[in-house]
Structure formats: structure tokens, C-alpha cells
């Protein structure tokens, strides 16, 4: 309950700051961004986050699952370590490195554009998803898998009917953490031509105008907090009811 009060107060403060900085109009020799600007940049921001997290899920969940399979367990340190490195490189560096890549890969045309930003964000957001998928799939009670096998489920049926539903809550936590991180990191996307709310913030940074920085930062924080709340609700909603019940002693 107290946590919810804090979250709601934070959201109200962020909205308040956004309205205040936008209503100031002229800031020194600069003009504040309009609501229409904020709306456009928020939309760009969300699009980048959406694609980056979506790709991270598409890649991360199967990857985290794959390395829990018997034949692949040996490469699990490699995969988890790789994802770890992805996150331990400063986000700014990843984004900068991506912008300098002079080639095209699949449908991505690297360079000074949004696709580059999305790939950089994807690399940065991959770890929580891979790590949580791996941990949750690896922690499923072996007795359940054995009884599923013993009853004649195929490998794929076991993954689909037993392992994924049981691992889902933890995987969703990974997706939520990844999303919140990516919303913050996407501020930097503007540096490689990705636009988003970073456009406002960095205009403030280069102009040395605190109000402009706040005008970009406040909506970003609002996005991060509200997406976190939404994803947490989804997490609770998809957790199978049987798993929320505490074990009764015999």
C-alpha cells in the first residue's frame, strides 16, 4: 500500500514537472518544447523501446531456455556471460559503437538512424530476459518434468504445457526490468539519430538549460514508472492461480 502511494506521488510529480516546464514558454534565449513536441518524442521513444524489448524477448526467452537443455548446458556460461558483458559496457559506449558500424545486417542498415539505436537498446536490455528465462526454466522441480515425461508428453509438450507456464512469472519480471532499463537508456538514442525524449533532454544539456533537461527527463521517468506498473499487473495476471496459493501442510 505504501509502495503504491509512493508510485502515485512520483507519477503526479513527473506530470507536474512536465506541465510546469512546458508552460514556461521562453527559457532564456530558448523556447520550451510544446505538448505536440513532447507527444511526438514520447511516441518515438515508445516505438524504440517496444522494438528493442520485443526483439530481446524473441531472442532472450528461447536462448535462456535453450541453454537449460541437457545438450546445451555447457554453453550456458557463455550465453549468460555474453549477455552480462552486453550490460556491463556503459550504455553510452554501446550506442556509440553501434553508430560506427559501417555495414548492413539483415534489415538493419547501421549508421546514424533509429534502427541502430534499437539494436543497441536490444543488446543492453537482453540480459535480464536471458538471465530470468534461464534461472526460471532451470529451477523447475525435476519431479514435475519427470512425471510429465512418464505420462507420455513429448519434449515440446513439456516445454509448452509445464515449463513455460511455471516459468512465466519470473520471465515476465525479466521483461519488466528490461523494459524499465530500456526506457532510461533510450534517452541516449538521440546521439545516434534515434530521436525520442532524449532529443529534449540533450537540447537542454547542450544549451545548459536545466528546465529543458527536466522537460525531457520528467516524461521519461513517467514512462519508466508507469510501464513498470503496467507490466507488474500483467505479471500478476498471467501467474497461474495455482502458483499463488501457499502450500498447505498435510
Amino acid at each position, binding site marked *: 500500500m505504501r509502495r503504491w502511494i509512493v508510485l502515485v506521488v512520483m507519477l503526479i510529480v513527473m506530470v507536474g514537472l512536465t506541465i510546469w516546464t512546458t508552460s514556461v514558454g521562453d527559457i532564456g534565449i530558448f523556447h520550451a518544447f510544446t505538448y505536440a513536441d513532447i507527444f511526438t518524442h514520447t511516441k518515438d521513444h515508445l516505438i524504440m523501446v517496444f522494438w528493442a524489448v520485443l526483439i530481446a524477448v524473441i531472442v532472450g526467452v528461447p536462448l535462456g531456455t535453450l541453454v537449460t537443455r541437457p545438450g546445451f548446458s555447457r554453453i550456458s556460461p557463455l550465453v549468460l556471460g555474453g549477455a552480462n558483458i552486453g550490460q556491463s559496457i556503459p550504455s553510452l559506449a554501446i550506442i556509440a559503437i553501434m553508430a560506427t558500424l559501417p555495414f548492413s545486417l539483415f534489415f538493419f542498415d547501421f549508421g546514424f538512424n533509429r534502427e541502430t539505436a534499437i539494436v543497441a537498446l536490444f543488446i543492453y536490455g537482453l540480459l535480464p530476459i536471458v538471465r530470468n528465462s534461464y534461472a526460471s526454466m532451470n529451477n523447475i522441480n525435476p*519431479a*514435475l518434468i519427470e512425471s510429465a515425461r*512418464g*505420462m*507420455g508428453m513429448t519434449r515440446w509438450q513439456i516445454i509448452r504445457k509445464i515449463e513455460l507456464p*511455471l516459468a512465466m512469472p519470473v520471465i515476465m519480471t525479466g521483461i519488466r526490468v528490461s523494459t524499465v532499463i530500456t526506457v532510461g537508456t533510450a534517452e541516449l538514442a538521440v546521439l545516434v539519430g534515434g530521436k525520442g525524449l532524449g532529443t529534449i533532454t540533450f537540447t537542454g544539456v547542450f544549451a545548459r538549460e536545466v528546465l529543458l533537461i527536466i522537460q525531457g527527463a520528467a516524461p521519461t521517468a513517467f514512462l519508466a514508472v508507469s510501464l513498470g506498473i503496467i507490466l507488474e499487473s500483467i505479471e500478476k495476471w498471467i501467474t497461474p492461480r*495455482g*502458483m499463488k496459493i501457499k502450500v*498447505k501442510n498435510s
Partner: protein
Amino acid sequence: MIKLEKVTKVYADGTKAVDEMSFEVDQGELCVFLGPSGCGKTTTMKMINRLIPITGGNIYIDGVDNTKINASELRRNIGYAIQEIGLFTHMTVGQNIETVPVLKGWSKSRRRERAEELLELVRMKPSEFIDKYPNELSGGQRQRVGVARALGTDPPILLMDEPFGAIDPINRVELQSEFLKIQQKIKKTIIFVTHDIYEAIKMGDRIALMKDGKLVQYDTPANLLYRPKDEFVEGFVGADRALKGLQLLRVKEVMTGTYATAKMGEKTEVVRERMEKEGIDWLPVVDNSGRFTGGVSISDLTGGRAKTVKDVITPSEAKSDINAVLNEALSLMLSSGLKTLPIVVEDNRLAGILTFDAIQETLHEAVKTGGTK
């Protein structure tokens, strides 16, 4: 039904878990795999439904080599129950029981009907339990659901891996008895793995006693107890094997059927004379329709006055059902201090009495002859 022929399991590191095991389990029989941990009993069982691949020999199910059948298909036709932890926590009791029916593509209504039928069989009220989750049940209830799930599509064979191992002793005894009753109805061919000799004797039609991956003795519980093949078997069944044999006998096999009784309305002197003539100091009392009502001992009858049995009866004494296992009846005799235990059939009708002498004689006979079940 199930035939093992020189079944061998050698692991990649060279350890021989099962070594040329050969025997047959007949249709409708409950065969217990018994032995100390590491004897290969679970490994052998899991080779039957191919959870563990066989490395030598053959296993035939109804004459068909089990490696010739698709593994998933094979397993769907063999019920499988492990300890209660094997239930899927994210599914309801009904969904758990419907697991194999779903895999076999049964229609929704047929599955539901079957789940309800099976819950009835394990004596759980379908309307109350079918939509509950495993975590809402007690350990004993979860185990019942586990058994019901194994029976999902009515497979002819059941494999049970220490199914009652995680249950507390009191509930375990109850579940065992109940499962035996169910087995009388369903007559499945069952492989039952346990390391508990008491459980093995109680449950098994036959026991396969294993040691270090080898079959030591494959026999009826009575023969295992009274005709141990070697020192290992003797040691495993224990020095108290005669006492363990009490579990194999039913009260009706030991009791004395025709026995003097006292009637409620009889004069005490008449009863006393009868007791003195027979040389006994206690008589069960029955009412006019033969129902057991209590007992009189000779010390109650010394008074000489013209009383009836009704005035001196000690009512509601300990008694045992005619179908009870002998060790339960004996235990009751020891705890109640009775030298003679009245045996009743349904409706509380007196059927006979049980004495220490009779028990001793029967056990002595069993040890001498090898026992019969």
C-alpha cells in the same frame, strides 16, 4: 504381461545399475520392487516405460518388445505415479487428472466425466475438489490425486515409484489399505517400488527383492518371510520376520469360530457353570439377535444371587472386524489387556473369538510350512 529378460543397465561411466534381471509379472498382479537404496529397483522400473534407456536385454509388454513402441505412445498407455510432489501446481486437480486423456485427444466432456469418476474412486468428492489446485490439498489428498491421474485413461499397467513415501505414517497406512481396496476393483498390473519392507509385505502379491542390481529373490511375501533364499534376504526381512508375518494374515484365518457365549437374559449361575465346565474365565455376551454387546468374566459372577447376565455385563468391550489384519487385532489385545478378543462381522454380529494361543499356533505353523497367503 510384463516380462524382463536379462535386463541390464550400464551407465556411461561404467557403473552397472541393473545386472541381467529376468522375471515376469502376471496380469492383475501387484509386484513390489524392494531393496536398499542403490539396488536398481527404480532404474528397473523406469526402463519399463523407457524413462531410462535399456542397455542390455529386453522388456516385453504383452509380448511386444517395448523398444519397438514409440516412447511417448508407450508411456501414455502405462500409468505413472510418483510422490505427491509430481502434481502440476499450475493446473487444477481436474486438469492434472486429465493430462493423459488430453494427450490422447479425448473430448472435453469425456475427460471431465473420467476425472469425476476417478475422484470418486479415490474417495474425493468431485464437486469439492475438481477445481482446486494441488497446493490447496493436504499431502494425503495430493497423493490420491496422483493415483487418480495415473489411472487417467484406464491403462492396464501402473508404475508407482514410492508413491506413499512422502506421507506421514498414519496417513500412509490408510492410503495403502485404500489403494489395496481400489486394486481389488481395478485389477491392474502394478509395479510398486519401495524400500519399506512393511509396505512391501502389505501391498505385494509378489516381491522382487533386489541387491546391487541383481534379483535376489522373487517370491510371495510369505515365502520371502518364511523361506528366505539366503542370508541377505534373511537379514533384510529382519529377525522379527514372524511378527511381520502378522500382516499377511487376516483375523478370519486365525479365529475360533464356534465358541460358548452368554445371553443377556441368562441367569448368572447357569453362565458360571458353563464357564467352569469349559475351563475358561471370560465369555462374550450377545443379545437375542446375536449382536455382540459386551463380556462377562468369572469374577463378576461370584455372588450367588439370582441375577441375570444383564446386571453384571461389562459393555462395549474392544473387538475386531473379521477382515482386519492380524497385527491390528493382536495390538488391540495387547493394549486392552484382553486375553480373548471378540470378532464381529457387519452389524456387530459375533463371529468368533481370537486368542493368543491361536495366534501363536498359526505363526508357528507358518514358519514351519512356509506360510500361505
